[in-house]
């Protein structure tokens, strides 16, 4: 019997190899992985909601930003998964097909379900980094399971994939920035995000309240 959504998530949070193995072969694995990614992206966007509030976006735009945050994470994860999938072959891993890799590595984003906690004052940004490290550890475990690699090699593949994704985004930085701006405009209706320090420039002037 397949585990429930909650059991999949709890197993991924514990970095449990059996859970990742079940996700790889489960007929619901893809649905679970995509749900985790969408919810994690929404949660992470909620954790960074200060940018949305600072820009005084409407409730409708706020909700749209959460959905787009989820989709953005799906895209980000797919790029990473694709790179790891390509690298795993070079590192001598079993050539799994792409979909099982998505099922397993998508589930590895489960720690980001706590992304809303980034909203906490002062410790939020530290939590954001810790959650990303947790995701990296889960991706290493998942990579080890789905490609049959020993953990050290899986770690090298996952980290190399992470760096390659970062490099790709740098190389196509302009494209990424354009896409980011488009996402921002679509979700918030503002041309560019207002930063917290901009509050200083607005102080004393009341027109920003109109």
């Amino acid at each position, binding site marked *: 019997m397949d585990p429930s959504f909650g059991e999949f998530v709890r197993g991924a949070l514990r970095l449990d190899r059996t859970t990742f193995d079940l996700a790889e072969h489960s007929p619901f694995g893809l649905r679970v992985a995509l749900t985790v990614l969408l919810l994690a992206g929404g949660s992470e966007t909620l954790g960074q909601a200060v940018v949305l509030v600072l820009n005084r976006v409407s409730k409708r735009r706020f909700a749209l930003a959460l959905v787009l945050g989820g989709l953005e994470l799906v895209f980000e994860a797919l790029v990473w998964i694709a790179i790891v999938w390509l690298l795993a072959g070079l590192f001598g891993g079993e050539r799994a097909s792409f979909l099982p890799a998505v099922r397993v590595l998508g589930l590895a984003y489960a720690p980001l379900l706590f992304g809303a906690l980034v909203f*906490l004052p002062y410790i939020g940004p530290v939590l954001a980094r810790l959650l990303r490290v947790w995701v990296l550890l889960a991706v290493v475990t998942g990579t080890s399971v789905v490609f049959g690699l020993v953990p050290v090699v899986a770690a090298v593949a996952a980290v190399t994939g992470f760096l390659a994704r970062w490099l790709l985004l740098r190389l196509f930085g302009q494209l990424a920035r354009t896409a980011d701006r488009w996402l921002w405009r679509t979700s918030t209706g503002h041309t560019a995000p207002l930063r917290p320090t901009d509050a200083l420039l607005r*102080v004393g002037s009341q027109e920003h309240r109109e």
Partner: protein
Amino acid sequence: MIFDLITTLLVVAVVGLLLIGLLAPMESLGWWAGWSGESHLPPPEAGVTQPKHVLVYLSGIGSISGDELLAEEALFLDHIQALLPDVVIVRDVFPYSVKGVGLTSARAFARFWQLLDRMRLRGDQLLSSLINLRNVFQVAVAADPRYGPIFSCGVAQVIVGKACAAGYRPDGPRPLVLLGYSGGAQVAVGAAPFLRHLLGARVHVISLGGVLDSDPGLRVLSRMDHLVGEHDLMERIGRIVYPGRWPIARESAWNVARREGVVRIQPMPGMSHNTPGGYMDPGARTNSGAVNPEVTALVIASIVRST
């Protein structure tokens, strides 16, 4: 059985703590977004021609409202007032609210805070420590680079309104002096850039056992005197939890301000943070035989006179 009970209590405590933490920035964000009504900068009071020397007091995290200081805080300010009769001390700023609205004033949970206040007056320290916890999270909001500018923007407007109503004139010769006790020092430093912007005046902060971050606001201060009790554990916690205060962070605002002489440390021998033995404890005496609040007030008065 007992283990289960302890586990349940721990889970409830952690969930409660997270909830309080997650709700902490909401007041500031709501104010900025205009969810909680407008906040306008009060104009300086007309008719006061003679500029006055003003000292704005920002209380510690035990504060519940600007209208209601703790007894030892009020007595301590009386000591300062006696030493500085020509200085107007503004006592009614509540520094843990972006709008300066006290917890027992017009708020959704005012009755809850009033209940805790009554419990505190009866000596119940456990539940009433929720007041301190709530205010600690507001200090975290003030120190957070994401929320801090919004929070400080609002608090600065409150301070400007109160200081100008007390007779402060930005074009006068005196700087605006803020006395921040404990977390109040963080609020004071965070508000400094906005006060500079609003008033165009110099801002001088006196930190009494301040638990404060290496805030960018330090860069605009004309001076900060940081009074540190020999046994002040809370101040030491601030030095540990804020990485910008570590000596290794050589280029942090705190360490640069220290090197440039903007931040001056003033040791307070034998004193701790709170009663007993605290800066304001009327029952504690220094080696010279004077009571602590008198000694602390003397140090603060001499600093204010030198500005």
